């Protein structure tokens, strides 16, 4: 196309006005991104800084969410222990009886469980994981100077932040945070008088999550637009690293499912504050009938799980992407079955929209319809198995570096296998009717989603820490952290499968008062102790993280791992705009390891004379 083609002229004018440069815009442009302290560190529009903001806010919430679980595990493991020492932190939620012994208030027990679930699922594993790595890696790995709209990207963080503040505030109000479970099923969530946390606590919870939905949508819009429109020259879809594929599909899942959740919440808010009865029917409180008729709590469950099931993949797909990338880099081998990996991501994403009702086998859903959901639920196991097979094949015969990121990748694969297997049990409605609302389900989802996603996140943090902060995290501490987490996770969640099969229900305040469950007192103590040890293992990570930010070994070369993808072609201390000069153009896919006797060939290295583009 000639330079004076009318389209080009128009585009040049636009570029001038928008101040954007693309790769055909040659000169240096550092001045365009000039900033002061506030716009550099607080209201930054640089995706790399926003990534750090997401990560650090995520770590903050992870500490709070995990600490809550330790408190309620103490209650379950040692229901007769004196908890008075927690009073300075928990205030009137620890009641002191006549004998001077402190007890955790049962209402507050439920609030802790609810907050733990909400915080970990949304604030840590959605915003903390996907927000951090999508922001950090999308522009860097596809060769873009920033997101399509850096401004909306910044807003996405600040909506998350506001959502955090509202939720944090709800922890301190006198009636306490919401206590009806992280899924917020009505009627508990729809009737302010249902329990004490159902009042102001629930209102704040909903407001917080609506803000959160806005954050996810703004972020997701940017991720998709950026990936589809701003790839550097030569970065075709089939040359993108698997991380990018995973982030793309995750964002699509989010954009299709979070609005549905939002509409469910709107109806819930109407029920709570305007007297409608979308979800409420024929309810008696203290023997008095409410004047609500005709609503259906099952309707809420459909809406919630239409988000809820994709949400578990919104959490796990980014972790899968990170693991695929890191595993391949540190095995020094091309990822096995690149295309199969992409197709399986797409298949999982598609299927995740049509299986939601497997969470409702016990909700009075027509058994014939249930069968449909059983079949599709079990089909998800196929693409999941493809991924596991490909990871293991990538490792097989690799020149493996057993560093911390790699250990966490292997841990991820292990957890994903264990949790996927129990998913197959639960996917059969006949078995699920037994196991629903027992510790078996708790064990299943903690292993497959909780621990696996955390492992993916750790792999990512250890691996890209130098890219984020210009320093390395400490390897020895990292390895200790890994082994405590790995053994700890199985020690905590392994026994839960067993007590779950024995019928111990979830969401109970104490078990020792039931004859049927007395036998599990010792196991419950064991789980609690394992959880405490694992928790302290995580403190190691937090210490390592913040210590290494300032004191860690400095990064001296641009590409310390000998990795192929573009993020390692930017300067160690890259400014806003990522590449001070032209953006590299891409000549090959991201996994040319061990080709032509070279250990690795970066994506922007031109093809040799007569060299075929890598097949994948």
């Amino acid at each position, binding site marked *: 196309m000639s330079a004076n083609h009318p389209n080009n002229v128009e585009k040049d004018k636009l570029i001038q006005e*928008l101040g954007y440069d693309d790769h055909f815009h040659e000169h240096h442009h550092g001045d365009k991104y000039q900033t002061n302290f506030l716009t550099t560190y607080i209201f930054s529009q640089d995706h790399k800084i926003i990534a750090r903001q997401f990560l650090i806010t995520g770590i903050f919430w992870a500490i709070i969410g995990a600490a809550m679980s330790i408190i309620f595990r103490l209650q379950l493991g040692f229901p007769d222990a004196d908890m008075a020492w927690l009073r300075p932190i928990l205030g009137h939620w620890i009641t002191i009886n006549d004998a001077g012994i402190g007890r955790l208030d049962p209402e507050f027990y439920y609030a802790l469980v609810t907050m733990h679930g909400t915080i970990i699922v949304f604030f840590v594993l959605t915003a903390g994981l996907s927000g951090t790595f999508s922001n950090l890696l999308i522009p860097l790995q596809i060769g873009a100077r920033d997101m399509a709209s850096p401004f909306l990207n910044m807003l996405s963080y600040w909506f998350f932040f506001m959502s955090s503040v509202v939720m944090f505030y709800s922890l301190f109000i006198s009636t306490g945070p919401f206590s009806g479970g992280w899924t917020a099923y009505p009627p508990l969530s729809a009737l302010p008088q249902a329990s004490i946390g159902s009042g102001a606590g629930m209102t704040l919870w909903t407001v917080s999550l609506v803000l959160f939905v806005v954050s996810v949508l703004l972020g997701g819009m940017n991720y998709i637009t950026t990936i589809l*429109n*701003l790839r550097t020259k030569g970065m075709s879809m089939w040359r993108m690293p698997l991380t990018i594929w995973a982030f793309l599909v995750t964002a699509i899942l989010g954009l299709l*499912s979070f609005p549905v959740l939002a509409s469910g919440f709107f109806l819930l808010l109407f029920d709570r504050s305007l007297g409608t009865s979308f979800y409420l029917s024929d309810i008696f409180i203290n023997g008095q009938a409410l004047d609500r008729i005709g609503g259906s709590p099952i309707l809420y469950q459909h809406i919630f799980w239409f988000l809820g099931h994709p949400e578990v993949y919104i959490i796990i797909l980014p972790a899968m992407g990170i693991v695929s990338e890191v595993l391949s880099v540190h095995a020094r081998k091309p990822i096995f079955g690149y295309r199969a990996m992409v197709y399986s991501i797409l298949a999982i994403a598609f299927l995740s929209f049509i299986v939601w009702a497997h969470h409702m086998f016990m909700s009075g859903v027509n058994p014939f319809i249930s069968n449909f959901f059983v079949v599709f639920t079990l089909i998800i196991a196929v693409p999941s198995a493809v991924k596991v097979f490909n990871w293991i094949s990538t490792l097989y015969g690799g020149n493996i570096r057993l560093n911390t990121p790699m250990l966490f990748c292997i841990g991820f694969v292990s957890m994903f296998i264990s949790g996927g297997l129990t998913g197959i049990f639960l996917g059969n409605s006949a078995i699920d009717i037994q196991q629903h609302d027992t510790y078996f389900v708790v064990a299943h989802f903690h292993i497959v989603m909780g621990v696996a996603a955390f492992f993916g996140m750790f792999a990512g943090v250890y691996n890209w820490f130098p890219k984020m902060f210009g320093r390395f995290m400490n390897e020895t501490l990292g390895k200790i952290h890994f082994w405590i987490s790995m053994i700890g996770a199985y020690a905590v969640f392994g026994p839960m499968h067993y007590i779950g099969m024995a019928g111990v229900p979830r969401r109970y305040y104490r078990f020792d008062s039931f004859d049927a469950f007395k036998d599990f007192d010792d196991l419950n103590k064991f789980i609690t102790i394992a959880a405490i040890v694992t928790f302290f293992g995580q403190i190691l990570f937090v210490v390592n993280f913040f210590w290494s930010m300032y004191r860690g070994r400095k990064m001296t070369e641009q590409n310390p791992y000998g990795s192929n993808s573009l993020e390692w072609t930017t300067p160690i201390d890259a400014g806003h705009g990522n590449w001070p000069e032209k953006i590299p153009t891409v000549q090959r896919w991201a996994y040319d390891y061990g080709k032509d006797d070279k250990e690795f060939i970066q994506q922007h290295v031109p093809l040799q004379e007569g060299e075929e583009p890598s097949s994948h």
Partner: protein
Amino acid sequence: MIDKNLGPSRYQALRFGLWIAMASITMMFAALTSAYLVRKPAGNWYEFKLPFQFFISTILIFLSSLVIEWAFQSFKKGNENSYKFGILASFLLGISFLGSQILAWKSLTAQGITIDLTVSGSFLYALSGIHAAHVLGGIAALMVSLLTAFLIKFEVSPMRILKFDLVRQYWHFVDILWIYLLIFLILQ
């Protein structure tokens, strides 16, 4: 989506971003209307006539959509007066759409169909109310266009075409969304 000869550019991206936003709003209304469909056969469903104001508001928003299209074409042709007039007119029509929605709700309440009377009524309020909230977003965008039209020197630049185009597309979108909702409610 991406012009291979020119390489990526962010201005195409913005338009694409808007489409994604519209897709996600569509999902939200798909959820609300399927909730309606799921709930209806369960009984306890009062039937009543849609207030006639809904039909007036349909005409208003449809006109508004036509006018903004005309304003957009005039703008591209450099026809300043019809551009300014068109923006103003579509803005006013948009406001009167909201006004007539409010009248519709008032007439419903006057007939005794309050938001908490029955689920069928609640749905009516919820659907039209949540839609109105999205129209309000469009009105805010139109307001910015209006200020641009009257306060900033007239100039047909690609950037301004782009910005106007985004507003226009969103405005058409909420229009079509309303027509969808109305047809949905009539068919039910």
